[in-house]
């Protein structure tokens, strides 16, 4: 059986090319350009899917991307909307959420339970006895959901793009085209988008026999096409309006995020269904859906249909459909009988039977599909049954005003029009056409021109001034297109299977405001987001509350207009990753390179950093010499008259005693006294400092210093050198000997003492040398231009060759520093640690006039509640002692281990722990609660674990190895 109409110009299908696919196992042939649903209808299918809750047969409703019942899937994708997605050759489509196929869906038995499943039933059942709930829940989860996700699907990401224009026109129907036409030669940059693949909107299917309308359309399209300032975006829907006139457009190529100076919303209106028993049966559809099917896809969705008329549009659409060759047997007028004759005249003249003053009783079904409509009419209100396989509903409209709500517009119910209309809109946002309450074609066109004129005026440009038309004095929407039936099944929400009785039940139970009713009944919460249900829900509620519809208010319309695939939203996958200048050396030498924040750093020079490798690198540093890449350190240059003032304010210590060419350890706290970051400050002259910050905080510290300088109006220039300068730490008793070979400056302890800084040429590279001691050995940090670092590194390796120099990684560095009792910020401190708690009180100069955190630290200093201690594990055991194991005293929590390592120097496990101060006395034994529940005794020891006299990092001659 084919329901294809004869060819006509302007149809969206290409009859020269066939598309063949399977639907529920049955072969279907359509034409290129067919969407899945149109191909199915053309080949005689009426039931295309099952409903969500009761698994009732469902077919086409809107044919405008809110046929949320017709969700299909094939092997590669799910939730395919049959009414808008093109049929693809060779696909095997099926309806989602059936059990055993569409025809004999076993889930439909659930309908027998429907009387037991009133709205909100799940709040009232399944919770007693409690142990049974998980069982019920499993059943509920089994029935829940629609499509099935394919876990093997490949990631589909589409790039997100940005674009800019003066005027964005959303919707290329009559109003949008009129606006675009008016602006085509204005010189303003214009973008026009429409969710359909072709521009024209209802001009194509509700006015296709109107020569004036067609002439207008062709003229407008031509003007747009020839204009160099108008960009067209067919197939792009506006998903949401966001701040500052940004609109997310979604199309076949992904997301186009448009930032417009003005936006004209010409999105039209959603036609609304009538609510009566069995209004969900396949064959019952919106009148505009039938028109779209007939004119775009040349499909006759029925043999013989009745039109339910609640407005004038019903008659024009009936005539339009008749013109397309469809059989309309009757128009059932449920509107005001007094005015029926005038609106019906043309239809009657065209031979269509008109039944005035009618009410809908119900639809009759045969095998789940529409068979007849039963009405009451005449003075007797006798029931009359009209056999038909199509019922077309034309009872009203709801403006597609979601974007206007999101833009902050005010939208109110108009009692004359019986619909909501925008009343006030924010600056730069304009509405035009049906969304603005105009239904007559001429008014929509005039309104579009007026919107264009207002937008150009707003932009300081001018096009031919056009005034807004005045709104019609009669409604295009029926005030209450809802007929209750004693046996129910009058569907208000098709997505969620909600009938009028459900709303009544919700109302009786106290859910009597629009928001509560929505949440309790779930009306409007399905995939079509209430486009065809919210308004009827509000009408039902208003009647129940005995309130005016306008007093009810509406629920907020949130983004998105239509659901959007996550792969389109996600855009390209972009991840930052920073590599140091020595990166290729590390990878060439099989380093265990891992991500440390954004940086890549070598943990050790052996895959997976086994303890043996870490200990080898450790010994290298303790006994001879090693090099570590510390280029990830933040490096900040500070110049200017007020540099000291800035540092004094930003850091806790005092800089007055720091002589030029010397450095010191520094740390900063926030205003609440919590430690933020640490580093080294090197002074090169009175007005020139070079400081370091931790790898993860470098940018924050730069920003913070800049802020302080701005706030205090200090004369300081701050330059972030982090990426321009690399850094190498050369450490170990033989480090001086290595350095000596590569530089001409005197590196003797007398000439270049501990904590001194020097500018020097090393291996021909201009560098800064800092004598540091983080790992507890004689050592130099060599800072050099990033592009010279690898050469410098190689030179160090060659010069150190005779001492057995080797690179060491972060893991060995951590062990070395732990033996030295140096803390790692973020590991031995947490987000609320103050300096006094971690033995850094010596670096806080409360006597300074002013610095960040001073007032808090004054309060915190006498607190002395917890203290960072060093400990040794007393007994050997296989059960590891881990970082973050707790310390327990008499059953109470008294502390936490922050760092743990096996110390080759001490020959036992050592660590740092934050404990209550009264327990911090040396030699005290504490109990650590291990992860397995056992306790391990540890002994508090003095810090540091290694070289308490600091002789090694200051020594003139290499001392004997202590490791």
């Amino acid at each position, binding site marked *: 059986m084919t329901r294809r109409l004869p060819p006509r110009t302007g149809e969206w299908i290409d009859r020269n090319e066939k598309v063949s696919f399977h639907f529920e196992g049955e072969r279907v042939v359509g034409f290129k350009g067919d969407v899945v649903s149109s191909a199915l209808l053309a080949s005689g299918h009426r039931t295309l899917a099952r409903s*969500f809750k009761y698994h009732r047969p469902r077919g086409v409703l809107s044919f405008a991307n809110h046929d949320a019942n017709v969700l299909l899937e094939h092997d590669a994708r799910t*939730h395919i909307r049959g009414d808008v997605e093109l049929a693809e050759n060779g696909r095997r489509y099926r309806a989602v959420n059936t059990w055993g196929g569409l025809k004999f869906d076993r889930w439909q038995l659930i309908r027998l339970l429907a*009387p*037991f499943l*009133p709205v909100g*039933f799940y*709040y*009232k*059942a*399944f919770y007693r006895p*409690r142990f049974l*709930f998980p069982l019920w*829940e499993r059943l*509920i*989860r089994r029935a*829940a*959901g*629609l*499509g*099935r*996700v*394919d876990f093997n699907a*490949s*990631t*589909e990401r589409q790039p997100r793009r940005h674009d800019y224009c003066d005027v964005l026109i959303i919707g290329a129907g009559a109003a949008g085209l009129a606006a675009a036409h008016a602006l085509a030669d204005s010189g303003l940059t214009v973008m026009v988008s429409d969710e359909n693949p072709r521009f024209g909107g209802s001009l194509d299917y509700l006015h296709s026999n109107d020569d004036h309308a067609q002439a207008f359309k062709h003229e407008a399209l031509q003007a747009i096409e020839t204009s160099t300032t108008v960009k067209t975006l067919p197939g792009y829907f506006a998903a*949401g309006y966001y701040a500052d006139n940004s609109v*997310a457009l979604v199309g076949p190529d992904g997301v186009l995020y448009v930032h417009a100076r003005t936006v004209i919303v010409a999105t039209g209106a959603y036609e609304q269904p009538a609510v009566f028993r069995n209004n969900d049966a396949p064959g019952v559809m919106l009148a505009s859906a039938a028109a779209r099917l007939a004119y775009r896809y040349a499909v006759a969705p029925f043999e013989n249909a009745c039109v339910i008329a609640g407005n004038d549009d019903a008659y024009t659409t009936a005539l339009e459909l008749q013109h397309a060759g469809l059989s309309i047997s009757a128009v059932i007028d449920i509107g005001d009988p007094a005015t029926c004759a005038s609106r019906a005249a043309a239809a009657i003249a065209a031979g269509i039977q008109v039944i005035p003053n009618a009410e809908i009783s119900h639809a009759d079904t045969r095998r789940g599909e529409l068979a007849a409509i039963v009405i009451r009419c005449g003075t007797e209100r006798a029931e009359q049954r009209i056999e038909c396989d199509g019922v077309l509903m034309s009872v009203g409209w709801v403006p597609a005003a979601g974007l206007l709500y999101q833009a902050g517009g005010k939208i109110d119910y108009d009692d004359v029009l019986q619909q909501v209309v925008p009343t006030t809109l924010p600056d730069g946002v304009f509405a035009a056409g049906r969304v603005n309450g105009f239904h007559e074609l001429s008014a929509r066109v005039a309104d579009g021109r007026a919107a264009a004129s207002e937008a150009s005026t707003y932009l300081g440009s001018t096009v031919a001034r056009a005034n807004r038309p005045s709104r019609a004095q009669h409604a295009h929407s029926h005030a209450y297109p809802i007929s209750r039936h004693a046996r129910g099944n009058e569907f208000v929400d098709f997505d969620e299977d909600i009938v009028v009785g459900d709303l*009544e*039940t919700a109302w*009786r*139970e*106290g859910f009597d*405001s629009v*928001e509560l009713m929505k*949440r*309790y009944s779930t009306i409007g919460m399905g995939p079509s*987001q209430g486009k065809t249900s919210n308004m009827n829900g509000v009408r039902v509620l208003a009647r129940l509350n005995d309130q005016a519809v306008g007093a009810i208010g509406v629920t907020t319309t*949130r*983004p*998105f207009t239509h659901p*959007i*695939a*996550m792969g389109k*939203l*996600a855009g390209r*996958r972009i*991840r930052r990753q920073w590599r140091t200048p020595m990166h290729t050396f590390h990878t060439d030498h099989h380093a265990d390179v891992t991500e440390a924040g954004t940086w890549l750093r070598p943990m050790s020079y052996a895959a997976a950093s086994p303890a043996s490798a870490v200990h080898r690198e450790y010994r290298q540093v303790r006994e001879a010499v090693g090099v570590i890449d510390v280029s990830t350190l933040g490096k900040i240059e500070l110049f200017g008259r007020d540099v000291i003032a800035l540092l004094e304010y930003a850091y806790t210590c005092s800089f007055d005693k720091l002589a030029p060419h010397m450095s010191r350890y520094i740390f900063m706290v926030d205003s*609440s006294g919590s430690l933020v970051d640490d580093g080294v400050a090197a002074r090169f002259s009175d007005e020139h400092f070079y400081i370091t910050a931790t790898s993860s905080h470098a940018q924050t510290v730069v920003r913070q210093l800049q802020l302080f300088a701005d706030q205090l109006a200090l004369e300081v220039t701050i330059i972030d050198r982090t990426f321009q300068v690399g850094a190498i730490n050369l450490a170990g008793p033989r480090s001086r000997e290595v350095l000596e070979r590569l530089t001409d400056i005197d590196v003797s302890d007398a000439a270049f003492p501990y904590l001194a800084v020097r500018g020097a040429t090393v291996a021909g590279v201009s560098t800064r040398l800092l004598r540091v001691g983080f790992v507890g050995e004689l050592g130099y940090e060599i800072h050099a231009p990033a592009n010279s670092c690898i050469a410098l590194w190689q030179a160090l390796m060659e010069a150190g060759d005779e001492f057995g120099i080797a690179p060491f990684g972060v893991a060995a560095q951590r062990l070395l520093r732990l033996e030295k009792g140096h803390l790692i910020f*973020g*590991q031995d401190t947490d*987000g*609320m640690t103050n300096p006094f708690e971690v033995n850094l009180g010596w670096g806080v100069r409360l006597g300074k006039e002013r610095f960040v955190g001073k007032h808090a630290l004054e309060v915190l200093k006498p607190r002395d509640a917890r203290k960072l201690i060093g400990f040794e594990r007393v007994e050997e055991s296989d059960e590891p002692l881990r970082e*973050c*194991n*707790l310390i*327990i005293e008499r059953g109470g*929590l008294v502390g*936490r281990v922050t760092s743990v390592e096996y110390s080759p120097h001490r020959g036992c496990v050592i660590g740092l722990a934050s404990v209550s101060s009264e327990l911090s006395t040396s030699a005290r034994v504490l109990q650590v*609660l291990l*992860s397995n529940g056992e306790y391990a005794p540890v002994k508090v020891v003095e810090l540091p674990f290694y070289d308490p006299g600091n002789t090694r990092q200051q020594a003139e001659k290499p001392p004997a190895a202590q490791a």
Partner: protein
Amino acid sequence: MALRLLKHAFIEDYAEPRWFNTPPELKKTYDIVIIGAGGHGLACAHYLARDHGLHNIAVLDASYIGGGNTGRNTTIIRSNYLTPEGIKFYADSMTLFTELSDDLETNIFYSERGHFTLAHNESTLRTSRWRAEMNKFYAVDSEVVDPDEILRTCPQLRIDCGGNHPIEGALFHPPGAVARHDAVAWGYAKQASKRGVEIHQHTPVTDILVENGQVTGVVTPRGTISTRKVMCAVAGHTPEVMAMAGLPSPIEIFPLQACVTEPMKPWLDTIIVSGSLHLYVSQSSRGELVMGAALDPMELHSRRSTFEFVTGLCDQVLDLFPFLGGVKVNRQWAGMADMTPDLAPIMGTTPIEGFYLDAGWGTYGFKATPIAGLTMANTVAEGIDDSRIRAFSLGRFDDFNLVGEKGAAAVGH
């Protein structure tokens, strides 16, 4: 099948009694006025009526029942906090939650799904262990697990995380649960109403009257009410209400956004959280993926949505579940969160006699609903702070006695 459903089936037009009253008039005087008809305010009203025999109570709301953060959160319930105060408090909350359906005669769909907080680096793994050790010490079921163990529960998860910062382990909290948020608010409203508490929706409080340091009443557009006790549970609006009582506030308001996908057949049985990726995701019993991210980066008293939120979130979610590229996001929304300096709530008595605060709930208010209601009821009834909330007093800031929840503030909802 519940008798209640049988009645629906066989009695024509059967409906249960109204869940909550909507008295037409405000009285001139109430013993207690609760500002905010969200989960917390209604729970407090319920426990005041049930446990303390106080019935002359009005719950006022500027909007509708459960319309604030109660109806906007992603309903995750857990007790794997970091501080002793936090762990014990939320553990008590979970105990109450497990019995709540029965107590409220309303199925709140409390569903234990297990809760994974993924660790993508060493320091998060360390923090996870810190939380696990603290949790275990206070008898909360919580442990650090390795990637294999995560995969056993959630085989669809991509451990390599798209190529950057692979998952190294997770904090696993088996009792982690979700619940139907609206039902919690409605259930409390129902029980409170039953005991005579009045719920006045669409009744904003515009001022709080204080004389000599003692609350004497509240002002609304429907008239002034005299009362000696006011309980404020208005997450997202706390600074404004505190200002009405003349109190300065340490709270900052940040938007928190969320979104849901179209409903699909349930496949994700656990709750997945990643602090590093700033996301959390679970699948509801309707089949929708409920997803959220970190707070918006600027203070704002508004519930506007941003496109950056939803695009950023999807970008990260696809690292964990790359096969979701074709799954569609249906709707996004936002709430407003009260953020405190130490990421712990502010509860109990205040320097104003008769003014009680239940505030500062950050992103974790829903999971505290029952225990907050219970302890606030005790506090309001007795006029002194319940022992369980002493650590959360407003006065702690005066003394720098902060709660250490911020110590390891990875995102975790």
